[in-house]
Structure formats: structure tokens, C-alpha cells
């Protein structure tokens, strides 16, 4: 037999699949969890669902940052720009008579539009300097927004158009839209990374020059990720606004959001779709437990982040994955030979 015939015969025996059996089981479990979460407003008191809104926002923000930094290699410290623009879009649209819940996706769209010219500027900076450059851009957006009197200037503004809705219904609607946002960001990342874009993104992240010489349009791939991430953060900003019913420029454009996103992703595991999910749960639990300790809680958070960056580069999910081989969102492939499990990523 010639070499090619050998290879073809050999390839016929090999089965390639994305999902291991464990992934299918865990996929079903996750679908069940999503259904239970969706039914929660009928089952528990509104204090529980109100708290969970914060968790969903954190999951969405962290997923977007993970997409940007973990898959696109774009380490931004300025995503609060889009949280702020999304929040203010919802405020402004509601003032124009748009139903606030409908304004959330429109706010996301606005953010994507703002992200186009912003990316022209920001992409001129490389690596670490990109991080601080995006931060300056977020500051510029904040300083511009506080100069607009129509949205309350420096003191912020309340959300209009919500007074007609019954309070219980409002709480439930806000909860559902926050849940939808979290599911959409995770699902969106998964679908994006499974496809051609995902492959080219990971190639760009790992070796930009090689990816570019293999025919990948590096800037286009990065810009796509940047726009999606901006839209996701914008929607999160919108959800924050309809949950708190008002907006304050210093709080919504605060670099603290970036701190949260980064620590959730680093602790959970950067570059895994599961990472932000796990990280957000850990972060949220820490937040609930340590809420009474004031700033010490942030000191601890910073120290944990530093420790994770130094000694646990794969985060908690990296640890889980190494021990169990579990993958909730398989974006790679498994190769099986006959019945044996010769697995590769």
C-alpha cells in the first residue's frame, strides 16, 4: 500500500467527535439548571431573584472579558466604557418613550456602533499598552457624558418609563432579562468559538504572525470580538440600569468593573468558556460572605487574584479540567480509535 492509502485506511478507523459522553450528560444537566433558574420567580421570594440578577450580570461581563482577553488576546481595562454607554443608552431611549426592557438590546447595538471608531484608535496600541489605552478611552467617554445635561450631567439620572409596571412583575422581568443575558453571552461565546471564527481567533491569540501568514485576517477577527464584547457589556450596563432604576456616571464608568471582570476570569480560568461561570460563582460567594468587612474584602480579592495569576495560570477550571478532563462546552475535538479513548484537545 502506498502511504496515502495507509493513511486513508487508518483514518477510517478513527472517530472524531466534539463531545465526550461526560459533556453530553453535563449539557443535559445545564439545560435543566437553566429551566429551573427560569422558573425561579414563581418559586422563591424576590430578594433571592434580585440578588441573582447581580450574579447574572457578573457572569455576562466576565464572559465578555474572557472572549476578549482569553480568546482574542485583547487585554482591555476599559470595558466599563461600554457598560456606561449601554446604561446611558437605556436611560436616553427610555426618555424618548422606548420601553426600557426593549431599550436593553438597543443599548447593546449602540455600544457596537461606538466600538467601531473606538477600535480604530485602540488597535493602534499593542499588548499591555492596549490595556491602559482602552482605560483612557473609557475616561474620555465618562468625561464627555458628564458634560451632557440631558442625561443628568455629573450627578446621574433616574430611569423613566418603569412606573407603570407592577413591582412584582418588574422584578421578574428584570430577572428574566438578566438570565437571558447571561445565557446569551455564554451560548454566544460557545457558538462563536465552535466555528471558523473561533479557530482563527485561537490561532491569532497563540501566534499572531503565524496566523496572519496562514491567511487569517487578524485585525478583522480581533475587531469582531471587540464589537461583540462591547455589545455584551452594553447589554449588561442596560440590565444594571433597569435593576437599579438610575445611573451615576462615576459608578457606571468605574474601573472597578474591569477589576471585577478580570478577577472573575483569572480565578475561574482564562481561555475556558466555563472559567467565567465558575469564577463568577466563587466571586459572588466571596462577596456575600465578606460583605461586612468593607475594603478588606477587596484587599483579599486583589491578593487572591495575584496568587491565581502567579500559581494557577489555568484558574480553578484549569485545575478541574486537568483532574477530570471534563469539558462543559467542548470547542475542540476528541479523537477516538476503535473503542479506545485516545483523546486530544
Amino acid at each position: 500500500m502506498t502511504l496515502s492509502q495507509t493513511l486513508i485506511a487508518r483514518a477510517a478507523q478513527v472517530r472524531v467527535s466534539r463531545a465526550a459522553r461526560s459533556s453530553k450528560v453535563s449539557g443535559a444537566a445545564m439545560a435543566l439548571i437553566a429551566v429551573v433558574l427560569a422558573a425561579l420567580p414563581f418559586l422563591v421570594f424576590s430578594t433571592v431573584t434580585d440578588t441573582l440578577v447581580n450574579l447574572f450580570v457578573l457572569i455576562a461581563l466576565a464572559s465578555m472579558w474572557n472572549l476578549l482577553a482569553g480568546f482574542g488576546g485583547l487585554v482591555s481595562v476599559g470595558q466599563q466604557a461600554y457598560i456606561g454607554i449601554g446604561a446611558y443608552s437605556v436611560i436616553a431611549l427610555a426618555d424618548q418613550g422606548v420601553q426600557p426592557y426593549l431599550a436593553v438590546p438597543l443599548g447593546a447595538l449602540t455600544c457596537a456602533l461606538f466600538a467601531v471608531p473606538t477600535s480604530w484608535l485602540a488597535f493602534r496600541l499593542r499588548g499591555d499598552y492596549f490595556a491602559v489605552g482602552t482605560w483612557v478611552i473609557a475616561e474620555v467617554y465618562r468625561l464627555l457624558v458628564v458634560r451632557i445635561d440631558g442625561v443628568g450631567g455629573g450627578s446621574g439620572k433616574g430611569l423613566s418609563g418603569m412606573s407603570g409596571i407592577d413591582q412584582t412583575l418588574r422584578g421578574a422581568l428584570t430577572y428574566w432579562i438578566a438570565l437571558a443575558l447571561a445565557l446569551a453571552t455564554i451560548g454566544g461565546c460557545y457558538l462563536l468559538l465552535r466555528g471558523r471564527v473561533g479557530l482563527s481567533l485561537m490561532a491569532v491569540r497563540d501566534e499572531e504572525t503565524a496566523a496572519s501568514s496562514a491567511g487569517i485576517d487578524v485585525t478583522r477577527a480581533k475587531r469582531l470580538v471587540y464589537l461583540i464584547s462591547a455589545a455584551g457589556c452594553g447589554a449588561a450596563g442596560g440590565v444594571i440600569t433597569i435593576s437599579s432604576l438610575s445611573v451615576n456616571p462615576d459608578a457606571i464608568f468605574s474601573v472597578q468593573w474591569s477589576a471585577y471582570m478580570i478577577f472573575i476570569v483569572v480565578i475561574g480560568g482564562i481561555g475556558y468558556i466555563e472559567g467565567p461561570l465558575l469564577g463568577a460563582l466563587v466571586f459572588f460567594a466571596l462577596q456575600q460572605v465578606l460583605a461586612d468587612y468593607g475594603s478588606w474584602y477587596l484587599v483579599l480579592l486583589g491578593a487572591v487574584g495575584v496568587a491565581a495569576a502567579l500559581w494557577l495560570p489555568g484558574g480553578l477550571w484549569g485545575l478541574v479540567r486537568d483532574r477530570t478532563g471534563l469539558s462543559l462546552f467542548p470547542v475542540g475535538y476528541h479523537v477516538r480509535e476503535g473503542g479506545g479513548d485516545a483523546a486530544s484537545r
Partner: protein
Amino acid sequence: MGWLNAIVQGLLLGGLYALFATGLSLMFGVMRIVNLAHGDLAVVASFLALALVSGTGLPLWVVMVVTVPLFALLGYLTQRVLLQRSLGAGPLATLLVTFGLSIVLQNILLEVFSADTRTLDGGSFATASFHLTDSTSVGYLSLTTFLLACAALAGIQVFLSRTGLGRMLRASADDRETASLMGADSRHVYGIATAIAFATVALAGLMFAMRSSFDPSIGPSRLIFAFEAVVIGGLGSLWGTLLGGMVLGVAQSLSAQVDPALTLLAGHLIFLAVLAFRPQGLLAGRAA
């Protein structure tokens, strides 16, 4: 205040920005580390000096002489213990470590010193000035700061170009592995670079503290100034940093003439304009 006065004040303010930005530029030039805790370190120096002055009653200049070498030592240790480890842990790690450090420092200061706004009393020296023309006066403090900045930059320049350690530093910055083959201990060299960076940031922090009020959360917004000065001047160019600081200072003080609310925005816009039209900076080059 006339326009000429605004320009003079802006140029002098630029000296302070340059002094503050030198450490950022040096650490990036040598180790490729963007130190996101840079601004917070300056604030830590301010608070340390404040605590020393009120705690021991020593005169301010003694406190300064103590604080700056202390920070240099702190810098050397930080590099060897914390940052060196992060250099080996991937490109993201240094950014995350310094960012984490920034959060930790800010909140420790907040717990220890509360969120109150403080000032460091520089005595009559900080407020005295002399007249250049009828409408233009120059404060002794800003002039001293400017001269200190020039002296620090010149000192670093001489250190880098004339001494053996400086040569090793430049070699390690260019190609760490080859420099190691030639006998340069890159960890020691990196420690020295960070020590210089921390010493200048402490000096800048003290100058900031005498000039204007400060509180534990002001670090990040000061980091932005330093970063802008570095990028406007040109990455890796020492004297570019001075030029960048002066451009930023003049932009801020001129716009403050028009409307004080525009001060920060004008600085940021100049930065973005440089980014858009001259991304390599005004003085592109590599001196560090």
C-alpha cells in the same frame, strides 16, 4: 493669569508628569512590564511621608531622604519576589499581578488612612514664588520639581550609557537570553531597574503631595497621566517622556484657562490625537 503664564505653569507641571512617568517608561523598556500599580505607589509614598512627618516630627526633607531609598529597596524586593515570578507565568500575568497589587494597595490605604483628602504641608517653600514678568510667576516648588525631573532623567541617562550595570541593563532589555549568556544576571538587573523606577515614583509622589491634595483612590487617575506622557513622548525614549509630560501639562493648563472642567478631557484628547496621527510618539526612539 495670562496665556503666557498658563504655558509656563504647564511646562513646569510637565516636569512633574515626566518625573512620575520615568519609572513606568523604564519598567516597560527593560522588562516589558506595564506597572498598573504605578499611580498607587506614588500615593503610598505620599501617605508614608505624611505618617512619618506627623508621627516623628522630622522635617520634610529628612522624610524625603528616607522615603526615596526605602522605595528603591522595596522596588528591588518587589521585582525579585513578585514580578520576576510573573514574568515566567505568561504575558497576562504581569498585568494581572500589578493590577491586583493596585487594588490591594488602594484598599489598605483606605482602611488605614480613611477616604479623607489630605495634603502634605511643604511650608513656605511650597507656596513661595518669584515673578518672571508682571503676570507670570514661578513657584519655587514647581521649579524645583522640574529641575529634579531633569536631574533624574539625566542621571538615568548617564547610568544607562556610562556604567557597566547600565550597559547590562540595556543589553537585557534588548535580548535577555543573549545578555544572560554574556554573564548578565537578568534578575539582578531587573531588580535594579525596578528599584530606580520605584525611587522616581516615590519622589514624584512626594512632589504631587506637596502640590495638591490626595486620597487613597487617586492613584489610577494619576497613572493615566504618566501613561499619556510616555505614549505622547514615544515609547522607550527617556527625553521623549519629558517632552510628553510637557505637552500634557501645557494642554491641561491652557484648557483650564478656557474652562476648568475641560482640564482632564483636553489631556486625554491630546493623547488620543497622538495615538491617531503619530502612534510612535513625538520622539520615537530607544534610549532605555
